[in-house]
């Protein structure tokens, strides 16, 4: 194993391959920073070029690209409240308020450092688990995936703050949207209304951009000022963000673990990993209930560590079984096919050097990407000072283009428009939006895997060990969710009582 690792590292150090890695990193950073585009587009561009490359070059450039999209996707999330990729939605909740306070630089610094640690951690986990990779992944069957999906849904309670009813309804709405399309179990076309476009369901990208991106840009435009309503001198720099990361190193590592784990579950991956990490941070960090959502840097560190670690996680089932952990991984598999490689035990034995090339590329690309982003940060933070009317049309056009990219059909734009209105109204009336996204992503997983579990195992699926462990986790998660909500309600009542008391005191004096 060590031999293959060293051979792979030496292979990577060849100048042309490093160059390919750099090119991949540059492309990945650019794509991650443009809302809605992300790694998938870049991989699609690169795929035909890989015909003429050898395996080491092909994976250096492709992995270089996907490793860093989760680093630069922080940029639009923090500055505009528009998710750079579907993995940086949670970053918006605290990153954007930080930008409004003039702390964009700090948010970036923390995010990049957390991304770096998360990403390197992800590749480390992948590297070390090679010997036990296959048995671990094999232990997770349809019942286990169902339970993990259910665990994800239980996060809705955590992410609904003290509006649990609205949160549950939003989550249910997301689940329903996720059911649109052909039901694989019965062949029935559900809620398709005669539209071919909806056959495969509502795609995630237009929904996510509609729900998060457009409402933010609309609200910023309504306010009519710059993003940061704080004078230039108070733009807090990158270094304080880096210090924050080291101060919260344990949180970052934990979220790295969450990222690797969630990233390794096919279908779960990218779009929910940040929510899992954010939810976990709320449950475990002191005072999180008060400060998260208002510009707490920990609310940026958690999802950012996880979303970089997820790539290492997603590579696990891809390499070991040829089961793509995400859509980007599916393209990577395509590249493997072109190279004549067979995912499976061969990648862990005969072709181990190629596997290690991927792991090294992942680690090195994360380092390059972070350094590049750090260098650009203070310049980027200044965008927060640009007139909003210059940014609005740019974001709108990019969001339209990125949405259309999903299935290249007018339906993408209809979805975008519908969910934009819905998202803005939800925001205005205090309906939490994250549960809707969670519901949408998890709907298929929950329904299909439950059906498979019951068809295949009858009722016996519930007695499987991992299923029971996850059930306990769900109960614990729900308990914390309810307890936190109650605590917050009590605190709010206390605060109201205090305000009333002070108010009546003033009146008396007057």
């Amino acid at each position, binding site marked *: 194993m060590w031999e293959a690792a060293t051979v792979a590292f030496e292979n990577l150090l060849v100048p042309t391959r490093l160059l390919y890695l750099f090119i991949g990193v540059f492309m990945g950073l650019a794509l991650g920073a443009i809302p809605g585009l992300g790694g998938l587009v870049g*991989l*699609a561009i690169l*795929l*035909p070029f890989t*015909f003429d490359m050898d395996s080491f070059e092909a994976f250096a450039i492709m992995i270089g690209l996907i490793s860093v999209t989760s680093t630069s996707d922080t940029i639009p999330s923090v500055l505009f409240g528009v998710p750079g990729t579907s993995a940086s939605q949670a970053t918006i909740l605290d990153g954007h308020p930080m930008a409004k306070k003039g702390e964009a630089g700090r948010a970036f610094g923390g995010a990049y450092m957390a991304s770096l640690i998360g990403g390197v951690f992800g590749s480390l986990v992948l590297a070390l688990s090679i010997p036990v990779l296959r048995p671990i*992944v*094999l*232990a997770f*069957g*349809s019942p286990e995936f169902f339970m993990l999906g259910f665990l994800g849904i239980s996060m809705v309670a955590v992410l609904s703050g003290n509006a649990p009813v609205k949160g549950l309804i939003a989550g249910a709405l997301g689940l329903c949207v996720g059911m649109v399309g*052909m039901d*694989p*179990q*019965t*062949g029935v*076309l559900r809620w398709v209304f*005669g539209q*071919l*476009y909806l*056959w*495969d369901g509502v795609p995630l990208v237009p929904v996510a951009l509609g729900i998060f991106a457009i409402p933010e840009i609309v609200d910023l435009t309504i306010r009519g000022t710059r993003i940061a309503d704080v004078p230039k001198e108070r733009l807090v720099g990158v270094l304080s963000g880096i210090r924050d990361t080291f101060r919260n190193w344990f949180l970052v590592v934990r979220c790295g673990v969450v990222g690797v784990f969630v990233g390794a579950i*096919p279908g779960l991956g990218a779009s929910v990993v940040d929510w899992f990490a954010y939810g976990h941070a709320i449950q475990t960090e002191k005072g999180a209930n008060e400060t998260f959502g208002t510009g707490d840097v920990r609310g940026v560190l958690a999802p950012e560590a996880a979303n970089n670690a997820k790539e290492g996680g997603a590579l696990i*089932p891809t390499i070991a*079984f*040829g*089961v*793509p952990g995400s*859509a980007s991984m*599916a*393209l*990577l*598999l*395509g*590249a*493997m*096919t*072109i*190279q*004549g*490689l*067979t*995912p*499976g*035990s*061969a990648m862990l034995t005969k072709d181990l050097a190629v596997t290690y090339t991927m792991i090294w590329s992942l680690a090195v690309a994360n380092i390059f990407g972070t350094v590049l982003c750090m260098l650009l940060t203070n310049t980027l933070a200044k965008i927060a000072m640009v007139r909003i009317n210059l940014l609005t049309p740019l974001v709108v056009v990019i969001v339209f283009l990125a949405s259309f990219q999903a*299935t*290249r*059909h007018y339906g993408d734009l209809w979805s975008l428009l519908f969910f934009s209105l819905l998202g803005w109204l939800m925001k205005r009336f205090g309906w939490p939006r994250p549960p809707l996204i969670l519901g949408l992503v998890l709907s*298929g997983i929950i329904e*299909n895997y439950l*059906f*498979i579990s019951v*068809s*295949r195992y009858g009722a016996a699926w519930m007695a499987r060990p991992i299923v029971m462990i996850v059930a306990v986790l769900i109960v614990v998660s729900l308990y914390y969710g309810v307890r936190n909500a109650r605590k917050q309600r009590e605190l709010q009542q206390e605060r109201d009582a205090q305000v009333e008391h002070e108010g009546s005191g003033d009146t008396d004096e007057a």
Partner: protein
Amino acid sequence: MKRSKAVSWCTLFCLLLFAGLMTTTAAAKTINILIGYPPGGGHDIEARVMARYLGKYLPGNPKVIVQNMPGAGGMIMSSYVYNRAKPDGATIGLFGSSHGLQAVLAPPEMVKYDLSKMPILWSVAGIQVHLTRDFLGARNANDLLTKVDRSKIAVAGRSKQGSSCLRGQLALRLLGVETYTAVCAYGGTSPIRAAMERSEVSYFVASDAHLVGGGAFVDLHNRGLVFPMYQSGILKSDGTIARSATVKGDVPTLYEVYKSVHKKEPSGPDWEAWRAIGLGISNLTRTLVLPPGIAGAKVGELREAVGKMAKDPGFVKDWERVFGQKLAPVLVAPDDASKIRDETMAPAEWQDHLRKFVAAK
């Protein structure tokens, strides 16, 4: 002042560029190959291999590009090619066997294309190989029918009305196996591969490509975890069914197994349905298709170019590296492909039978 100068130069440059573009002579048109699936899959890769070589053999050496138009199992693309693409030879669709199946099973108002009106340029036959897990205890078809505990047969499929699920169930019924569990909701081949490995399912209708090169089941096959029971075979234009050279080892066709079990020629609605979707449609597993209404001469020109491309050594080498199998045995001549398609897709009883089968619980 500096900035406005830059803007002025910029604008001037653009105007000049535009003027220049308007006056240069026309170059050869681009040919678009449309894929009904997202990038990275088998269709996409095949089209990209073709795109590298096809232009060479067409008049004017046009550039060939691949456009992905995913959705509705390829039907958004097929609807576009049939209804919107101009019949000038610049748009070619890469259709799959799902297009034939959906034409029968999908609600009629959603099937916005008519295969019989679309000329075929090239067709690659897909051969199915029915695989079982070792723990069932069957090393060949005979074992499957005599030694196996049938309650343990769990047929995997991507969806209830998907080809893998239907072909598997029809084959088992034809051989007299009525008790099995159908678990048809995995959504894709990769989850099924993983499910096979962890013994969640035990029967899957894979393709010959899955067992060679970088195919999904190569690993399991090499490790002795899956065994091929029978293959679909290739349907010849004279109606006979032959074993495919792309399936290694002594793997009989379903037809041979049926005859050895029932001692007679196969017949009946299940057989007609299986023959149509397991052979007829599957022989057109990846077909290059043109929009309707193209002049015969143009079709001939394109067929000739594609035929030459198929013999290009560079193309053949790339193909074999990527798909891990020889091209020649699975290439179906356009005329044969058209004949098979028209015969298979003509309205017939098997189509109603199949619809009833899918609709049943």
